[in-house]
């Protein structure tokens, strides 16, 4: 049993060990219990009650998972769509990346379907989908300071969006010149600015939140990834993926304050957060004013580690090994644990099929704990989770045992509980690795498209078909050793975003060809992307699917059936969708 681990004396965990018969060490009854031994006090009579919950956008499985902290046990999955990337708690973004949830809704963006899902945290159900205008390609979202709008990045089109949550009204602005790929964004905590990285420009764009417009671009290192604003609202931390540095932006001056070497392949950063008295910040109980932070933690994909940065001196003070290839990174609401969202699990878990699981690794961030810097839990995770954020469990009420009847849970009328129809309007299969030449051939009236996938690209990379064509796409993984990181076990993904998201979303493990067939019935230019993390240049593994209407000009970002695409035919039923109306300004 794992229970005889001598360091695991966190009360909660010991209790679990005892409950299942292990020879756990008994927590000291001494009044002077060291702080690292304190789990959150809870008044339940069960040790299985987690003080915090981690909601994650599950990536290619189209689901949001709910995981308990610190037990790291998965509670449930909420089905949302195709390829989920960012989770944002409704309320306000005050604080660190976890924000200040009001406990009502969780927003999650679907890169594969170009939508934003609204999950009711109290019912635990998907209540609404906001279908964003095409062409766009939403990569990540961030909540405005007043909690009323969601800002989004249009990775595939070089555009930025601002959507009014209540109505779905959406303002979209171009961020040229091409090639342009806005990916991660964050809001300034004072309501004035939105910051977004653009990995083709290698800049961080500064946008005015209201009116929503481009202000300036700040040059940063090569191919920036995460852009994360600290709780004080004074600094934005930019992970320069290919420069192995962190660019720190002074938000008041809108200029670079410092560039510090951090680690190989830095991707994302989280920080701790303290209330104005220096205690842990408990949303809903503590004032969101005067919040501070001490350390930032940055994920290092290539280095297989997380680095810890002192936010006063802006220097790296420690490096913690992770297993393996940390992509996103999360922190528990009480600052005690950092959760590395690892993209690879080579050799770690029992095989369950051709596609390997990714994993979440929770390490001890308490400096005074003997297990500081060590992995406390590592769990296999389905899908390929992108971001995850923590909420205190007290923000979600107990509606069981008839308590929902007392009211407060449901509004009058019908509250939707949406289950997206998966894999609609397509047939999908696997076949042994195909050695066909890449390209398009017509076979029995079907356009057969053979695609080779490797890190980091597709051959061919631009696919052009006519509207109404029956297409059959064969995606063959020819990767052997991923570029830069040399991982030997890379699964390649193939998703055409938007109306074709649910008809593709193919996962091609090594040695396998994945096939989908469908009718290309909606014209336009739709980005093809790899939805299975394959290495530092994963985001750059892209292509384009052009569906030309023979009666129109060749499709591009200005020519296509974009209004029809926005209805997401086959994804959801009528009435379950808020069509985000495109407006000139918000």
């Amino acid at each position, binding site marked *: 049993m794992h229970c005889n681990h001598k360091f695991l004396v966190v009360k909660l965990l010991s209790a679990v060990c005892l409950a299942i018969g292990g020879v756990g060490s008994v927590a000291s009854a001494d009044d002077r219990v060291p702080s690292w031994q304190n789990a959150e006090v809870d008044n339940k009579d069960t040790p299985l009650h987690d003080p915090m919950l981690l909601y994650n956008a599950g990536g290619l499985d189209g689901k949001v998972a709910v995981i308990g902290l610190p037990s790291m046990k998965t509670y449930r999955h909420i089905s949302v769509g195709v390829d989920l990337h960012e989770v944002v708690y409704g309320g306000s973004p005050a604080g660190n990346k976890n924000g200040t949830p009001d406990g009502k809704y969780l927003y999650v963006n679907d890169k594969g379907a170009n939508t934003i899902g609204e999950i009711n945290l109290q019912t635990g159900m998907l209540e609404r989908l906001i279908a964003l205008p095409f062409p766009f390609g939403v990569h990540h979202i961030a909540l405005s300071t007043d909690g009323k709008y969601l800002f989004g990045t249009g990775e595939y089109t070089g555009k930025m969006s601002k959507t009014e949550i209540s109505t779905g009204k959406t303002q979209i602005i171009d961020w040229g010149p091409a090639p342009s790929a806005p990916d991660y964004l964050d809001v300034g905590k004072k309501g004035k600015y939105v910051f977004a990285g653009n990995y083709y420009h290698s800049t961080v764009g500064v946008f005015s939140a209201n009116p929503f417009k481009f202000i300036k671009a700040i040059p*940063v290192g090569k191919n920036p990834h995460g852009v994360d604003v600290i709780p004080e609202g004074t600094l934005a931390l930019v992970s320069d993926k290919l420069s192995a540095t962190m660019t720190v932006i002074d938000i008041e001056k809108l200029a670079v304050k410092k560039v510090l070497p951090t680690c190989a392949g830095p991707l994302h950063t989280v920080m701790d957060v303290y209330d104005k008295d220096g205690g842990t910040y408990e949303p809903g109980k503590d004032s969101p004013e005067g919040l501070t932070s001490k350390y930032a933690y940055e994920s290092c994909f290539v280095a297989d580690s997380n680095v810890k940065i002192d936010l006063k001196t802006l220097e790296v003070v420690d490096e913690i090994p992770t297993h393996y290839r940390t992509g996103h990174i999360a922190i528990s609401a009480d600052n005690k644990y950092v959760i590395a969202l690892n993209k690879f699990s080579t050799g770690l878990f029992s095989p369950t099929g051709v596609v390997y699981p990714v994993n979440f690794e929770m390490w001890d961030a308490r400096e005074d704990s003997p297990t500081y810097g060590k992995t406390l839990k590592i769990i296999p995770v389905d899908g390929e989770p992108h971001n995850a954020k923590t909420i205190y469990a007290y923000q979600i009420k107990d509606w069981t045992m008839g308590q929902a009847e007392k009211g407060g849970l449901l509004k009058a009328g019908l509250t939707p509980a949406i289950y997206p129809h998966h894999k609609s309007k397509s047939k999908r299969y696997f076949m042994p690795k195909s050695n066909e030449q890449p390209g398009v051939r017509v076979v029995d009236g079907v356009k057969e498209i053979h695609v080779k996938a490797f890190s*980091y690209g597709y051959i061919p990379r631009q696919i052009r078909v006519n509207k109404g064509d029956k297409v059959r796409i064969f995606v063959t993984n020819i990767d052997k050793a991923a570029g830069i990181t*040399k991982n030997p076990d890379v699964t390649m993904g193939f998703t055409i975003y938007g109306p074709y998201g649910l008809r593709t979303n193919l996962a091609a493990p090594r040695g396998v060809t994945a096939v989908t067939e469908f009718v290309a019935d909606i014209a336009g230019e739709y980005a093809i992307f790899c939805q299975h993390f394959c290495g530092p240049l994963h985001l750059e593994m892209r292509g384009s699917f052009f569906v030309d209407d023979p009666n129109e000009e060749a499709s591009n970002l200005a020519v296509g059936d974009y209004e029809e695409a926005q209805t997401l035919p086959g994804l959801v039923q009528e009435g379950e969708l808020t069509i985000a109306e495109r407006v000139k300004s918000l």
Partner: protein
Amino acid sequence: MMKNQYLKICMIAMATSLVVVWAGSSAFAAEKKKRCKAQGEKVECPTLSDEALEKAAKAYEREAMDMAVGKSGSTYGVAPFDYLTGVGKRTDKTTLTKGESGYGGHDGGGTGKTELWDRVKAPAKGEAIYNQWTNNWSPTFTETRVPGADPNEGKQWYYGYCIACHGWMLQGDGPVAIDLDPRPRTLVAGKYMNKKSNLELFTSIKGGGEAISLSSSMPSWGNYMQDQDIWNIVAWIRAMQDVKSPKDLDEYLNPKSTFKPIPGDVNPLNAADSEDFAEAQELMEAELAGRGGGDLVGGKYVEGGLRKKPQDVAAKIKQGY
């Protein structure tokens, strides 16, 4: 309207030529060496033999598998893992090596730093960071053969985007080369490459192989990189002509290229005045993804990612960098 019609015809023509290329490649798959053209002359296509490509692919694969089981000497492979402590190595030994655990912060008497931090040195500064962390020792150039373009910048993009097919040493022997037909070109074959103009190289990178009537397996990079990034890659290729497999580190770090600039050739400093360049740009821009008019026109310069303007590259090289 006229312009659009013209472009549409071009695209149809391109699509047709594509089919021909594919059909052609499978028909001639058995043929040993294809004939290629350079400046109108027929030359042997610079590709490696299938045997060499098989060998290269196996070598990459072996290196990757070694990393998976912790055999590799590389700084950053898949770091070995210790199930007991969550830190350190998972080797065939089940016991810990002395000193591999117990950080115990302030009270425990330890350093408070993790093992990994102890193992690696504090990050170095500048260019060395890139080399150290990606384990790519590579040459650093002090001159350029393409005015206004920086081979050192180009090298870094090359390592990210190009090696899968063209290989670490530009031999056309990347890990997936054996799966492609036609095989990727050997980019250091001076006899062939030195006859290609800068514009041809720029066009084949930006618009893909189809843009110069070659294989569609070479993708268009114009919707991934800005024009200046592509020019930098051209400079990197020019700096490596006829560079052989090095005998020692010194030779490796100081490659001697045979390329001599072609008089009157287009480069980033004079591209704005070239009609040929303007024409090629117009055709490529019409074909590329990610263009929708308005602010989304392509090819413009954006400062960022340590990118420099052609004039600044020229000035920097003149100063001797």
